[in-house]
């Protein structure tokens, strides 16, 4: 009975981070590691949502300006800034966030679709929202953070 319930309502773990005042969650299974902010080398001609590249143990990883992607004003990095290395459909990329918070467990039934009052493309990477400890957590679908064209663009950097 409980197995059935679990199958119907699977439990997922989410890594949460802050951008500005809002708290976001990403699927823990897609997070490879969390790095302290280190120098990011700019890439000439890169799109504006790309901060640059870092060397991760011999591999070049592109770092995304998450604030830019989410339409938020830019902010100077500080001690709390982190680069979260994630895997999205065979692409390893880094996302710069203001700070990383914790890992939380959520049942699928706790996640509700977020309203989209913008155009078709706006915030399509927002998987849903859930309420935790009197604050709303915005869940991000990392596979939709970049479009196919943008992923192809990153490959060519």
């Amino acid at each position, binding site marked *: 009975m409980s197995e059935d319930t679990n199958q119907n309502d699977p439990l997922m773990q989410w890594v949460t981070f802050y951008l*500005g*005042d*809002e708290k976001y969650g990403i699927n823990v299974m897609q997070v490879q590691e969390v790095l302290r902010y280190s120098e990011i080398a700019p890439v000439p001609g890169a799109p504006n949502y790309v901060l640059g590249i870092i060397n991760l143990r011999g591999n070049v990883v592109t770092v995304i300006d998450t604030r830019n*992607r*989410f*339409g*938020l004003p830019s902010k100077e990095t500080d001690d709390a800034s982190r680069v979260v290395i994630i895997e999205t459909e065979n692409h390893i990329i880094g996302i710069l966030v203001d700070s990383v918070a914790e890992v939380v467990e959520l049942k699928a039934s706790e996640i*509700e*679709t*977020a*309203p*989209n*009052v*913008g155009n*078709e493309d*706006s*915030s399509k990477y*927002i998987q849903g*929202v859930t*309420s935790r400890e*009197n*604050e*709303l957590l*915005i869940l991000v679908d990392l596979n939709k953070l970049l479009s196919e064209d943008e992923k192809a663009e990153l490959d060519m950097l």
Partner: protein
Amino acid sequence: MKSKQKTATKQIVQHEQALDLYFKNMLGDLLSGQVAPEPKVEVKTHPKSQIKRVPEPVIAKEEPKTQTRQAATKTEGKIMPLSVMPEWSQQEFQTLFFKVDKMILAVPLTELLRTITFDRSVTRIPEQPSWFMGLMDELDSRIGVLDSGQLIFGKSRGMQRNLQEKPYQSILITADGRWGMACDGVLSIGKLTPEKVRWRTCRQRRPWLVGTVIDELVTVIDIRKLVPYRKNEV
């Protein structure tokens, strides 16, 4: 021959004036102040060619049809029939008066669930329009909080407001419990009868603006037309 033409011209002029008067009487209330003034009918300068055509039986038969069609088009295209007015506008209704910036607006109470004090922050969803302030959990519902200033005054004027320096004070929650209209304050509750309102029946632009309270010059809004349609249902 000339006197016959003169008589015909006089008849046409009288006919058009009568029709003009008829439509003005019939639509007068609907048109007052809402529709761009119609072009004036030139009663003195009918070209002779038109005068000659009128007495012909075929044209004389077609004339009323053309007029009917124009009136119907006008009804469908510009003037919405009273039947499409919100249901609450058909009889006396209780109204909540509230303030956005310096403007006082009225909304029927039946369209609202409750009002709350705007004393918490909202959770902003990335890449949504600037008038969508964010989400807020309120009792048993999750409401989308809307910047009434931007929705009512338009994006350019509404965005001039610095919400950090001059935050909204109250939120009107819609009857379905899904939207909150952020405003500067709830003023009072009163009753309105339909005759106290100049109803706006031509609402292609600003369909949410349904009328004006004649004495107080307060804008009556249809909140259902002001809140957006949610593409993704919660």
